[in-house]
């Protein structure tokens, strides 16, 4: 029997997955990383994309995350998934919006922010699409 590790994928609003897995692949900022049991402790930032999980027994599952943090501990792996795509510009825009509400002076948003938002949405959509394609492929087999 293959070695397994505990994996928990949680987002701030709900828990997405919890169980024993054999292998995890995720997209970190530096590139794709694969994690097998007994990996050294690691703390990595995740990019928007899919997390590929081989659950106990060899079946593959895919999860889409829009960023987050992956933590590897001797006793298991935790993925702290973001609930939404987080780009620095977007956060900044949200903060600005909150400030503006307080000032009660709604100015027109600059086109730069709209562009950044569109870009982030596009990246998320592409990643989501890829996750769906993989899922289809896995189910088709």
């Amino acid at each position, binding site marked *: 029997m293959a070695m397994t590790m505990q994996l*928990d994928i*949680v*987002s*701030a*609003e*709900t*828990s997405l997955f*919890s169980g024993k897995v054999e292998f995890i692949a995720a997209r*970190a*900022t*530096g590139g794709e*990383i694969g994690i097998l049991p007994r990996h*050294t*402790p*690691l*703390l*990595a*930032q995740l990019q928007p994309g899919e997390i590929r999980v081989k659950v106990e027994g060899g079946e593959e599952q895919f999860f889409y995350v829009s960023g*987050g*943090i992956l*933590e590897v*501990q001797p006793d298991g792996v*935790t993925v*702290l998934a*973001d*609930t*939404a795509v*987080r780009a620095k510009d977007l*956060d*900044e*825009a*949200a*903060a*600005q*919006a*909150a*400030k503006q*509400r*307080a000032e009660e002076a709604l100015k027109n948003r600059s086109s730069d922010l709209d562009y950044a938002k569109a870009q982030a949405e596009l990246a998320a959509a592409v990643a989501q699409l890829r996750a769906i394609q993989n899922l289809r492929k896995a189910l088709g087999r």
Partner: protein
Amino acid sequence: MAGAKEIRTQIKSIKSTQKITRAMEMVSTSKMRSAQARMQAARPYAEKIRQVISHLALANPEYKHPFLQPRTTERRVGYIVVSSDRGLAGGLNTNLFRQIAAAAAKDRQAGLELDIVAIGNKAIQFFKRFGGNVVAQTSHLGDTPHLTDLIGTIKVMLDAYREERIDRLVLCYNRFVNTMTQAPTLEQVLPLPAAQVIDRKHSWDYLYEPSSPEVLDQLLTRYVESLVYQAVVENVASEHAARMVAMKAASDNAGNLIDELQLAYNKARQAAITKELSEIVGGAAAV
């Protein structure tokens, strides 16, 4: 019969009020249940992220994040105040605001200035009257608040802390203890209280990707966000619980009132009948 008629209209109006309060009670009951479920759903994330942070405190990375460092001098304090959008929830918001006012008065006495982030209509209205520098606000999050709607308001405070415009950050909300009890809570968020030390078996540190400051910064930002989100969700549950209890009391009071009025009505009616009868008897005797 004039007295009896008046009483009857009064009973009618109280009955219709009772219908409304009873409906509100039932709505709150079901909403409270789903709010409690959301509270439960948010718990794993908070637990996990707390674990990671306590691991980090143990792993002792060479980098010290400003969120973990207590400031030696305090000049300004930031308050994030979570309240409900609507009233009719008993003393829920009032109790919280009273505590905040007391804490704020203490801070002002110590020569500190206040920056406020208001979440929810009631908080916005309160600080309009109370005064204080409201730097950001948001409202109408509804019964299913989403983290996305909170990011902006939280970031305003985190940026202020990073740029040393505030030296302490306090989170104020109603903690959901159980259906009958909601505790107004003022919690210090920044600087983060030192994690309790669990006995460490061996010394180790993480591999960081891309680098420890970046990961730690993201982690701590997410942690504060999850704390605020949790507070908002708990506040929603508290709001519905408080409203449920308040509306139940209102329905019960209306019931008592109706009983009393019914009795008065019956008496008045009986008195009128007796009077009429005696008049008829008196009239017959006279003839």
